[in-house]
């Protein structure tokens, strides 16, 4: 039983790490076309160049952990969300190769094509991830075997779309703060102004989302009443978000970035504390929900995976941190750059 909770937390941690890390490079993608000059776009790409594919590994590992720890959740969500996930794959493929291919030729059409591919791929990835989260938070229709029976259009409901847009705004905010750290001079001054705007957009979506939760997802409001301490987490989250413009204004971009990471962590914490112990809530038949108990692997697998995580994660964190340290500081365009 404890192992189920541990793995619920660990899967959450993996996806939170994904949001914090790939979140900024997806956000840079969302902002990419707002940089008009070719050199500025190259600086953006090279700001994320050495690290973006390592960041995406958190998604791959999170997916693998979900598959191993909660196979029924993995199977239901991935098959139920078939077309959105295929679109997500297309978006992830396009942005990956766009980063690699873009600066290999100097022709204008070539660069524009991959610039658009990178930006659109990043925005769509963020949007689709948000839509998925929105549906899981709100609940989807499952039959007694735990299979999704709602169809495609039911997934594209206003609430999920709103959470999708909130995710795009969140990542754009996160990416703009990251770019402040990696740029200098006039470009940095411009990017610094974007931070405040993206925070504004994010907050607007976030407020709308909370209102929509009260109206469209009354069962979530019930949960909030049952779990009054959620309000405390929510308050901490809002304070952290408000700290971002403050740090940005004072020129502490690294602390602004850490605040943004903490904002994502508290958002994911809110998400986890709200849905727990469900992993996929079934509406309108809550008895068909996939929980951390009925969707789980055996304790033996959970234990094996825990050993793998205890050995592997510290090693991963130590060299990931070293690599971020090696590539710290402002971006310089060299012959090896994208």
């Amino acid at each position, binding site marked *: 039983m404890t192992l189920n909770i541990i793995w619920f937390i660990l899967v959450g941690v993996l996806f939170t790490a994904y949001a914090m890390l790939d979140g900024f490079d997806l956000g840079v993608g969302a902002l990419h076309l707002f940089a008009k000059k070719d050199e500025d776009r190259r600086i953006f790409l090279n700001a994320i160049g*050495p690290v973006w594919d390592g960041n995406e590994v958190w998604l791959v590992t999170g997916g693998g952990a979900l598959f191993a720890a909660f196979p029924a959740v993995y*199977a239901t969500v991935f098959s139920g969300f078939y*077309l959105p996930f295929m679109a997500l794959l297309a978006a992830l*493929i396009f942005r990956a190769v766009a980063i690699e291919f873009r600066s*290999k030729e100097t022709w204008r059409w070539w660069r524009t094509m991959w610039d658009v591919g990178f930006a659109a791929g990043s925005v769509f990835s963020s949007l689709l991830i948000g839509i998925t989260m929105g549906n899981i938070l709100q609940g989807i229709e499952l039959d007694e075997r735990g*299979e999704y029976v709602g169809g495609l259009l039911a997934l594209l409901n206003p609430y999920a779309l709103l959470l999708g847009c909130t995710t795009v705004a969140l990542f754009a905010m996160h990416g703009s703060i990251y770019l402040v750290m990696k740029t200098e001079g006039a470009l940095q001054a411009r990017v610094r102004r974007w931070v405040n705007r993206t925070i504004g957009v994010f907050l607007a979506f976030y407020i709308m989302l909370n209102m929509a939760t009260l109206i469209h997802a009354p069962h979530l409001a019930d949960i909030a009443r049952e779990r009054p301490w959620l309000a405390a987490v929510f308050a901490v989250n809002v304070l952290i978000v408000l700290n971002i413009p403050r740090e940005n204004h004072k020129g502490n971009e690294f602390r602004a970035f850490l605040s943004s990471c903490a904002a994502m962590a508290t958002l994911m914490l809110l998400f986890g504390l709200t849905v727990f112990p469900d992993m996929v809530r079934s509406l309108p038949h809550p008895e068909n929900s996939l929980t951390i108990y009925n969707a789980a692997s055996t304790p033996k697998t959970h234990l*094996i995976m825990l050993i793998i995580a205890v050995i592997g994660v510290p090693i991963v964190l130590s060299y*990931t941190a070293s690599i971020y340290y090696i590539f710290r500081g402002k971006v310089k365009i060299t012959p090896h750059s994208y």
Partner: protein
Amino acid sequence: MGGMDVEILSRVQFAFTIAFHYIYPPLSIGLGVILVIMEAMWLKTGRVRYHNMARYWTRVFGLTFAMGVATGIVMEFEFGTNWATYSRFVGDVFGSALAAEGIFAFFLESGFLAILLFGWNKVGPKLHFFATVMVCLGAHFSAVWIVAANSWMQTPAGFSIEYNGEIMPQGFLPTADQIMHSRAVIHDFWAMVLNPSTLDRLSHVLVGAWQAGAFLVLSISAFYLLRGRHREFAMSSLKVALVVAATASLLQLATGAKSADGVMRNQPAKLAAMEGLFETQSHAPMAIFGWVDVEGRQVRGLQIPGMLSMLAGYSTDTVVTGLNAFPREDWPPVQPVFQFYHIMIGIGMALIAIAWFGVFLWWRGRLFNLSSRLVRAYYMMLVISVLGPQIANQTGWFTAEMGRQPWIVYGIMRTSQGLSAVVKANQVLASLIMFTIIYALLFAVFLYLLTRKIQKGPDEEEDGSEMPASWVAMMERRAARVE
């Protein structure tokens, strides 16, 4: 549309996406080995040429790696999107291998790749070499876990079957109705990872990847030599690649024989299809090439009498099981398995001949004698030989995976039972069309950029003037010591 269509479309989609993906990881693994060798030579001798070689092949590596990353995430999704019933059934056993692959392999690869690609002139030479070794190791580790997972589908071990929450006795096979309430549960992790075919198949896959990397380097180097470009660079690269190619090609003969032996013991129906053997018999022949007359239950073509029995038990009296011993519905598709297998074998033999002929020329001191028409013809052969390992790797996987049919988990779960219950044929058709278009575009761009890199060639900064002082100083120290 019925369930059959979903099955065919899902199988075609998985085969297509993984076959396209599999162009790239073997190149990353093989080039990784070659990069490690070249950088080690550079660190040992301090000669700038080895530095330029490592630099140039790193750029080629970067391109293949990017394609591998972009197309690799697809498969992890597809287990869930298209094969949800399979995923529910095997998650307890199979999922941990995928998660381990992420933790132990992908992070290592992608993390140190940053230093490998962008760390030139930024970190010290030794740290750069360390990063190259880590990327190479990571690429090998990823093969370890994914081949272990796939081998478990071929020769499942270390698990029990649970039905309605209760562990069933050994030998229990869930029926189509029971499958939704059954799952495989792990019983011994190491028995699962090191199942009877893992080591045979892993060594076969890795050596095939070394061949893919080595023959790519051979091909491009031979192209430069034929054109009279980058002569010194191409000669050194060719020598390194030739050593790897000759070693790997010969090793592949051993790993291949070992794999075939394992298939015979663990998956007899697959072996029978590979050789088109219908009658269970002693003195079983081995085909060199041929055509299987499935209805007439015989092979027309060139066969060596008794050879299969000889290989199976070192005696022509060894009895080899034929397809007739199995019910027809348990047969893999015989003709494709036979043909793919024999294409692979044929190419494997040709690669040994090509690599060792090069070694022979080298021994005779004629490898770089470009005025000789024989040597020039040999170089032309090398230029096209890059396709050899690629085709052999693909046909080898087709043999392995089609030979596993009709099972998704050999002897336990049929492929038709593993599909997603809620996914419709038109959805799979839509995604299949999407992948076809995207991959066609990507492949065109990949070939174009690779050609551009080849056209542009390596840096010719023979003095290392662009390097930081610390790197130059290291090279001077090493060069002094070597002399």
